[in-house]
């Protein structure tokens, strides 16, 4: 009896939360005058349906990128490093992957391997830059990593607009990477194998976070930097290593987007869909718990493809997805706190 009472007391705020979110979605649907039933069935179809599950495959393909970015930022967040420069690291990786594959001659599999490795290296270096700015130049990671998103975005835009542009296509994009390097589809589907890379990265992050000494040390650093320093952990080294790891995974995600989905670098292809920011909120939604991150990444991917389905079925602007995601984060993840505090304004490396 008393047990049931505590359960209902715990469940009540969640019921209110869900009602609030539903009410806001309903208000937006009514504002555009969309038929609610059709909108909802369009959402379901867009996220999980389609002929031979084509839309479900699109959701999975998108979640390969979102979960990848989520894993990348999760490693930083758990180490107490508020690296919000995932977007820049993602762009650095995608750009490098495409350019290497376009320019490098050789057997396709070798080219693919070299391109992916260079993409990871590029992502890692871009993340390290933010770490160096914080540790040695007194620029808080939070703003340093964010500000670094912009230069790389414009560098990439310049490179595919001028020196490496596919002029004949008439668009701002690089040439296609050789067809032999494209990631294959799973048999009988239109889902590329990129999701396997993400699965490996997620599994690695899980093992790393829970079962390695290094992962334990970084987590310690995240929970209490003072304690970590006092017991003699090499805090600076851990910071740089963690950032490099995050950046490498973000770079890998950029490579997946190139070889699995677009087969070239198109200006804005990694920035406009807000993959990096969606990855961040996917991590925040589940309070940085590693095993739950892939689930919440898939959930947000479904929100986005579902919104596209809602647009097709009921004429609701698909931008509603962004609003819904933000509202969910506001209501649900506003409970996350603590571990993020150390890289605020007055973090490490400040004089």
């Amino acid at each position, binding site marked *: 009896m008393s047990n049931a009472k505590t359960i209902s007391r715990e469940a009540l705020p969640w019921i209110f939360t869900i009602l609030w979110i539903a009410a806001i979605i309903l208000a937006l649907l009514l504002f555009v005058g969309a038929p609610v039933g059709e909108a909802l069935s369009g959402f379901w179809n867009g996220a999980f349906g389609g002929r031979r599950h084509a839309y479900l495959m699109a959701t999975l393909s998108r979640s390969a990128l979102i979960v990848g970015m989520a894993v990348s930022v999760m490693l930083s967040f758990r180490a107490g490093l508020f690296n919000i420069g995932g977007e820049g690291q993602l762009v650095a990786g995608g750009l490098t992957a495409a350019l290497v594959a376009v320019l490098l001659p050789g057997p396709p599999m070798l080219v693919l391997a070299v391109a992916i490795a260079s993409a990871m290296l590029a992502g890692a270096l871009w993340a390290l830059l933010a770490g160096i700015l914080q540790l040695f*130049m*007194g*620029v808080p990671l939070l703003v340093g990593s964010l500000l670094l998103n912009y*230069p790389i975005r414009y560098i990439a835009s310049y490179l595919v607009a001028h020196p490496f542009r596919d002029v004949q296509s008439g668009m701002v994009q690089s040439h296609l990477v050789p067809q032999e390097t494209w990631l294959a589809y799973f048999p009988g589907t239109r889902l590329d194998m990129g999701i396997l890379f993400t699965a490996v990265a997620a599994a690695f992050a899980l093992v790393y976070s829970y079962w390695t000494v290094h992962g334990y040390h970084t987590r310690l650093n995240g929970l209490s930097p003072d304690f970590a320093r006092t017991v003699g952990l090499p805090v600076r080294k851990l910071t740089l290593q963690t950032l490099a790891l995050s950046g490498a995974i973000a770079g890998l995600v950029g490579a997946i987007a190139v070889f699995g989905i677009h087969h070239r670098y198109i200006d804005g292809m990694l920035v406009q869909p807000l993959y990096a920011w969606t990855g961040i*909120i996917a991590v925040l939604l589940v309070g940085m718990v590693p095993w739950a991150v892939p689930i919440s990444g898939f959930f947000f991917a479904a929100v986005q493809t579902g919104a596209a389905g809602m647009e097709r079925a009921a004429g609701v602007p698909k931008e509603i997805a962004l609003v819904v995601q*933000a509202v969910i984060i*506001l209501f649900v993840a506003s409970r996350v706190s603590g571990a993020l505090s150390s890289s605020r304004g007055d973090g490490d490396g400040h*004089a």
Partner: protein
Amino acid sequence: MLELIADPSFAASIPRFVTPILLAALGGALCERAGVFNIALEGFLLVGAFAAVLGAYFSGTPYIGALAAVAAGMALGLIFAEFNLRRGGDSIVVSIAINLLAAGLTTFFLRAIFDVTGAFSDPAIAGFAPVRLPLIEDIPWLGPILSGQSPLFYLALACVPFLHIFLARHRLGLRIRAAGENPQALRAGGVSPRRVQLLALVACGALCGLGGAQLSIANVNLFVENMSAGRGWIAVVAVLLTRGRPWPLFFIALLFGAVDSLSFRVQGLGLAQQFTDMMPYLATLIVLVALSWWRAKRTKGDAS
């Protein structure tokens, strides 16, 4: 380069770039001083820019547009307060969510109301006309900077000394600083720190709303998706650098605005647009590094 800086039309364009950064940064300064870590200035600016176009389009006067921007900014400030102060959400998490919410709401309503994606421009959007100041406009070099700007620029200028005196002398200003520096003392005095912080957030929303209005109905007469384009983040940096003090903030905003304006001008020199576009962010990083080195050196000097 020197000719460019001496060019009066370059100087005259600086206030256009300073105003949004300065207004947003002053709003951020209020939060900073009140102890609210608000890094959602980017979202506040964006919502202000959109609401200003909405108001100016439907009413036909830019002043209603500016009022709409103020109202929208204040509403966003209330949402921030609800989730950060009342529900106790982490301020970074709430800020990120508010930024996404702003991007989502503006693009959603852009399509829902005007049925366009990307950008909305219409002759019916009533923009601010430049205010000409007689006599002052005849001063060489300085005249075109001070005269012929949007009313929001003069408002932003007036806000700097006003906020300085307000924070130093006014009772509410003292309470805002107490909420940031010593909330227990404030509570002991019978004032709720949270309520003071709420006021700071709402005022921040109003100021950022005006900054957004400068972007959309003073600098141009249109709304473009994501048109704040990082200026809110630059304002955040300005706030962090100056710890929310109005006068230093004014000079930092002036510097950032001048770089912004310069990068706009050098596009004419044949430099690729992508390189001029990244100048404000690089300049911001350089200023951050330089200031932190200078501070480190000074503290070292004090110690010896």
